[in-house]
């Protein structure tokens, strides 16, 4: 039955949607505005939203003094690296769970996911000590591995749900056609699961990009990504709101750009199971 929507109801709905969207977007907007304020305006209370002198000084300072470039590069390497590593492990794992169902497959999946519920701080010390004894503290390699492991349950789960949508017949046909396991995954499963794999990739790059607990605790400078860069401006001693905001904007812009351009892919992937 079609729902009848009067013009009045429609404008109320629209207004409500705008309010909610603004509330969600507001912190980002505030950060964005603050990044263009001189430091003394930035700390003003109540905050000033209009009529201040726009300045690029914060961006200038941040880039010049703190070496944005190397943080940015670390973020790219760590997020992409951990995602690629994760995919290499997760695709075969999800294949096994989706197509070679065992009695305990569901339990295994639940158990994997349950590790995500454990507070990360709980394993910080052992992981830190392991990293230290292997000489891996403050290396991009260590962060790639740790972030990969942290996100692995999510990658496996996502891929598992996408793979389950793929008819097993087709993989069996590949086997009958003489494909070994490697060819089956490479030539048949992966191309068919491209939308799902793409959205998993994107989501994981985003998660890894934004991850701050491990990046803050396991790096000092060499491997420090943008999260560390931002944190560097939040010291209690200084009036650094402006610079902090500029750093934040510069940290989120790349990922927002990726997200913006891959919106369609992301939504298609995330609803892959739903549309049939």
């Amino acid at each position, binding site marked *: 039955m079609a729902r009848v929507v009067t013009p009045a109801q429609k404008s109320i709905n629209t207004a409500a949607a705008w309010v909610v969207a603004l509330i969600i977007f507001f912190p980002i907007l505030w950060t964005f505005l603050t990044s263009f304020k001189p430091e003394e305006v930035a700390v003003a209370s109540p905050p000033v939203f209009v009529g201040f002198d726009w300045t690029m000084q914060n961006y200038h300072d941040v880039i010049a003094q703190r070496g944005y470039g190397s943080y940015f590069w670390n973020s790219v390497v760590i997020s992409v690296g951990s995602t690629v590593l994760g995919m290499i492990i997760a695709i075969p794992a999800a294949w096994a769970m989706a197509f070679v169902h065992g009695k305990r497959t569901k339990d295994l999946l639940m158990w994997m996911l349950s590790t995500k519920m454990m507070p990360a701080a709980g394993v910080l010390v052992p992981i830190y000590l392991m990293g230290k004894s292997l000489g891996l503290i403050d290396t991009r390699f260590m962060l790639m591995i740790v972030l990969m492991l942290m996100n692995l349950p999510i990658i496996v789960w996502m891929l598992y749900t996408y793979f389950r949508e793929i*008819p097993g017949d*087709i993989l069996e*046909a*590949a*086997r*009958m*056609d003489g494909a070994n396991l490697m060819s089956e995954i490479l030539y*048949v499963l992966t191309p068919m699961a491209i939308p799902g794999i793409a959205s998993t990739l994107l989501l994981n790059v985003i998660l890894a990009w934004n991850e701050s607990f491990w990046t803050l605790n396991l790096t000092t400078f060499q491997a420090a990504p943008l999260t560390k860069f931002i944190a560097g401006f939040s010291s209690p001693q200084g009036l650094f709101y402006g610079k902090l905001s500029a750093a934040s904007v510069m940290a989120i812009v790349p990922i927002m750009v990726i997200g913006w351009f891959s919106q369609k892919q992301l939504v298609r992937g995330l609803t892959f199971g739903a549309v049939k």
Partner: protein
Amino acid sequence: MGRITLDKVKKAFGEVEVIPPLDLTIEDGEFVVFVGPSGCGKSTLLRLIAGLEDVSGGQIRIDGQDATHAPPSKRGLAMVFQSYALYPHMSVRKNIAFPMKMAGVPQEEQNRKIDAAAKALNLTDYLERRPGQLSGGQRQRVAIGRAIVREPAAFLFDEPLSNLDAALRVGMRLEISELHERLKTTMIYVTHDQVEAMTMADKIVVLRAGVIEQVGSPLELYRTPRNLFVAGFIGSPKMNLIQGQEAKKYSAGTIGIRPEHCLLSTDSGTWEGTVVVSEHLGSDTFLYVDLKDHGTVTVRGNGEVSLHHGDRVFITPDMEKLHRFDDKGLRMP
């Protein structure tokens, strides 16, 4: 070559034994049809032969070689699935080429074989399309094309026609039979449709609950069904089965007579009854007749018979073609 031998092959899923130990030999070049009601284990048996399921016991030999534990890719068999199972992301050409690509066949030879297969299957104009852009019949042909290019030891078909509409089904049935005539390769064909079994098979294997009830040529099964199950399953419309007093007269537990082996008369005969429904098919007329004491039987008359609901008729079975079964349902000599 494609001689396939099953030696005490069995299959259980967990606790459930779907196929009790079973022996079967399929000769090279034979067209064998596995037929039986839904859920009787036909697909499972086919998948065991294909290697898509592991046996729980017994041995499978292909051309004398033990293939029991060989992966599907090493058995040299090709399969056509009910769902066609085409690769949706590849063009028709790439679909057909896939097994050859896996086998490392040189590109030129691949092209030659693809063109030949496409010509034989009327797919030449569709080679660059994706499976999604084809009709059901065309998809089925692509699946067959993909199977023939690799020149398998045997073809396995799992209800390949059940997703097609009736008219197309008859056409494809002929095409597959012709394909067998042409290639003379072993074919194992699974169906629940006894018409497909009767029309296509050299040898029919009737299955019930994983057990082979009878193996034989279509006519053998039609003429001498080994038990009540086969008697009821093979032939359309079904054989009439009559129990009780009437069967006792023939010292049997059950007697069976096919609708086409009954003589119809309006004035005299062995059994008397009234017409319940008459179906005119043009060439034939099928009458459903209520015999007072022996239940309802089906009788075939010629297309001109004009009898209607409530009419009184007499039926005389052809004694030569009467089947007798004992109390256990087994055929009596």
